[in-house]
């Protein structure tokens, strides 16, 4: 049992990572990784929605019939996104001003839907919760890394404005790597997104091949 959870976690973070293995959710990945902070913000918001919707789908999986499952999954993801959006606007308004733009975009991300279909619809509640959480964390990590690469190359900074997202205590994360105005602009424009993602993807494949791992691109495994 414990090794199964370990495998779910490893899959989400590395082996079956939403961005670097399954290549899902490319739209927010490209749009929101102009800086490490933006990538982290989008990733965290997505992780919250994925965890909540995995939990809900796994709880209701006995009632959702095969024929209408996709509309129900989309309904659940959209409801969670709207709920997070309203609650943050009302009670975490400063954070909402920074993240608000990202939140509505989560509905258009196919990664949550893919995990609901491939995992939460078939598995018990707790493994689904772990899968949603770690797939979400894996997604957040991937977006932060792509954002960091694009930000260092394009703007010469790392985690700029992180204190606006995480609070004043995180001012120490804001770094300047290169002197001002030396950045290569293309990195933070749309083509830079494809370049950075492609190079990082190749890097992950190389690491996997070195470690003697077979490259697995799809599929969820069952638990129990």
């Amino acid at each position, binding site marked *: 049992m414990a090794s199964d959870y370990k495998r779910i976690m490893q899959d989400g973070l590395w082996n079956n990572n939403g961005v670097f293995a399954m290549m899902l959710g490319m739209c927010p990945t490209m749009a929101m990784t*102009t*800086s490490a902070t*933006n990538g982290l913000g989008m990733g965290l918001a997505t992780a919250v929605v994925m965890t909540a919707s995995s939990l809900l789908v796994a709880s*209701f999986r006995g*009632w*959702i*019939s095969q*024929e*209408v499952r996709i*509309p*129900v999954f989309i*309904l*659940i993801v959209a*409801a969670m996104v*709207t*709920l997070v959006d*309203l*609650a943050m*606007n*009302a*009670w975490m*308004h400063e954070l909402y001003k920074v993240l608000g*733009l990202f939140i509505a975009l989560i509905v258009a991300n196919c990664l949550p839907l893919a995990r609901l279909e491939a995992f939460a619809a078939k598995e018990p509640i707790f493994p689904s919760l772990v899968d949603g959480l770690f797939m979400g964390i894996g997604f957040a990590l991937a977006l932060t890394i792509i954002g960091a690469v694009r*930000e260092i190359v*394009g*703007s010469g*900074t790392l985690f*700029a*404005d992180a204190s*606006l997202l995480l609070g004043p205590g995180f001012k120490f994360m804001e770094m300047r790597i290169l002197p001002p*105005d030396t*950045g290569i*602009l293309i990195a*933070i*424009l749309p083509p830079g997104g494809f370049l950075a993602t492609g190079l990082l993807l190749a890097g992950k494949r190389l690491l996997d091949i070195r470690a003697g791992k077979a490259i697995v691109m799809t599929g969820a495994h069952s638990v129990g």
Partner: protein
Amino acid sequence: MSARRRPALIHAVILSSFCTGFGLLLALTHQITAADIRLRAAEDLQNSLTQVIPPGLHDKNPAANIVTIPISEASRQVTVFRATKAGKVTAVAFELRGSGYGGEIRLMLGLDAEGRILGVRTLQHKETPGLGDKIDLIKSDWITRFTGLSLNSPPPDKWKVKKDGGQFDQFSGATITPRGVIGAIRGGLEFFKVHKARLMEAN
């Protein structure tokens, strides 16, 4: 007959129950959050107004003194917030819309009774992070350079970025964003000139 139709009916019932259930959940969330969200929006408006109209200029809250002026060509209205002191209008503030690189840029412009700029602030934008977002006061003080200027200072044909023959610096790597902002501010100054009489009426 009925045996063949029944499965479809069941799926319809399942789907509609989920829709009803989550619809109710969202309606409930909306009910709980609506008042707080309205309050936050009012706070945001108040914040942006205090940034473009110094508090010394009014004895009444400008957020409460509103005139709406229709703009015929855009078929929309501009809401003008007026600061009054001892019954006289001392300053006005209204929202501007400029078009930037990533879409619409919303600004708040504050002017004194003579049409001099008291302050401009970016309220909302979708400009490229690290490039065009320098119009935001959090990122750079670029936007404060307009304070004290008016439609004749600099002269109207100098209300442009340097690249277009004007007198304002663009920032490195971005021209479209400052061009949009400066154009919007100039439009706001012209709007004030045209509607000055109506805006200065005390009531």
